[in-house]
């Protein structure tokens, strides 16, 4: 079982010596092999949720557990894909992908095999010895996803992974991620502010309120996707044309608009 369970999680931030609440009453389970997206206005604490699952931050009260074990520190069982890619610029593509395996004592032969597999899976073959700065943003994020996938993690934590990409690249990456999720299903916690992206990718979408962040509503996308068999479409624009997709998207948009702060207008 590789689920992510938030129990009564609250998180306070300290600024200028004053504490103020950033997250409140977060109770949420990301089920085994589920793709769950969190959307919300900026500053609502959605990234903080992901970072608490990663062990990069900790709740002020409540607990976060992955696979039944309370999260106390970061580790390769909870692979993170960062918005800024966070590749090591002095390492080649293959070295970046293999670094986690090296650190965890995976023998050279097995390492080479696993890196080669994931290179192929992410359409990165031929770029093994390139350095990150020689690649486009989309290719760099492919490497970052490959680096996470190669660890064979319990859960994948993706923090606005396509936020820094241009619109076309973004669409390609979204389609790739869907393909990847079919070939190799994982428990995924996906943070985004793009509503279409969330509806297209996720089984469930969590909409958060503005600060202090709470869960406003959880929308079940998977049942709609199955009922309307979105999976018959190859391309994202065909899925986005479906009345059921439009309906969900508009619903989430309305929820988010209610959460807009007065000064956001």
């Amino acid at each position, binding site marked *: 079982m590789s689920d992510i369970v938030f129990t009564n999680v609250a998180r306070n931030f300290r600024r200028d010596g004053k504490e103020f609440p950033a997250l409140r009453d977060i109770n949420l389970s990301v089920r085994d092999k589920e793709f769950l997206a969190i959307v919300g206005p900026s500053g609502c604490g959605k990234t903080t949720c992901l970072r608490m699952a*990663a062990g*990069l931050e900790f709740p002020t009260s409540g607990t976060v557990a992955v696979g039944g074990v309370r999260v106390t*520190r*970061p*580790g*390769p069982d*909870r*692979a*993170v894909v*960062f918005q*800024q890619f*966070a*590749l*090591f*610029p*002095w*390492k*080649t593509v293959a070295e970046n992908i293999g*670094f*986690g395996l*090296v*650190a*965890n004592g995976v023998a050279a032969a097995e390492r080479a095999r696993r890196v080669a597999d994931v290179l192929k899976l992410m359409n990165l073959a031929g770029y093994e010895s390139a*350095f990150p*700065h*020689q690649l486009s943003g989309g290719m760099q994020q492919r490497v970052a996803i490959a*680096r996470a996938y190669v*660890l064979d993690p319990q859960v994948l934590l993706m923090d606005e992974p396509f936020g820094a990409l241009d619109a076309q690249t973004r669409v390609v990456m979204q389609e790739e991620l869907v393909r990847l999720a079919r070939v190799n299903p994982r428990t995924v916690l996906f943070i985004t502010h793009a509503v279409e992206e969330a509806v297209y990718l996720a089984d469930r979408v969590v909409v958060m309120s503005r600060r202090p962040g709470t869960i406003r509503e959880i929308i079940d996308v998977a049942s709609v996707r199955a009922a309307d068999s979105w999976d018959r479409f190859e391309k994202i624009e065909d899925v986005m044309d479906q009345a059921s997709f439009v309906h969900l998207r508009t619903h989430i948009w309305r929820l988010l608009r209610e959460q807009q702060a007065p000064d956001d207008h």
Partner: protein
Amino acid sequence: MSRRTVVGIATLLAVAGLWYLLTAATGWVGSARFPNPAEFGTAVKQIVTGGYAGARIHEHVLQSCKLVAMGFLVAVSVGLPLGLLMGWNRRAEALINPVFLIIRPIPPLAWIPLAIVWLGLGDGAKIMVIFFAAFVPSVINTHAGIRNIEPFLIEAARMLGVRGPRFVFGVLLPAAAPLIFTGLRLSLQASWTTLVAAELVGALLGLGYVLNAAAQDIFPAMILTGMVFVALSGAASTWLLGRLEQRVTRWRTA
């Protein structure tokens, strides 16, 4: 040849031409103040073949290079780990920084009297003075290099399970390498600057000693010779360090 190289060579030739013009050709600057090219050539020939100030040029250069290398290496092997520790650990920073802040504004040459009292007139005192000069920039830049690492790179490493020596040598040092090398360059420069001053006092060999002896002999051509060899040695060591930097940060130019 690139345009830059051509311009560089042209500039050097122009300076040499001007030198010839002002000294040998017109006599506007007399030999007692600054040597003409021929006198310079004679002085170079003298120190290379016959020797000056008790030794031939290669012995002077070797002695100076030895002192610089020792002072620089000791400074770097203390300064780099210290900067790393201060950059990584807030507690270590709080502990070390006050001491460092007191030492830092002391001009390296102000250590000369104490160095002589402690270590006498031999190489030890000079190495100590070079150490103090070279130590400061290597600590400061390593400290800044570590402090300026993008936090998400460190988080990525922790997420991958990278820790211990692999984290220090595989993540921290390469990530800070550009600034660390800036520090090393400044350290090396400071080493040469300090060397000449340190050798002005109580040395019997070395380029600083050549300069000192030439000044006492009122021998401008030999003073210029000494200066040129200091410049050449400094440039050679900087070039070596540049090669090392290029090797270590090969990815940047790939």
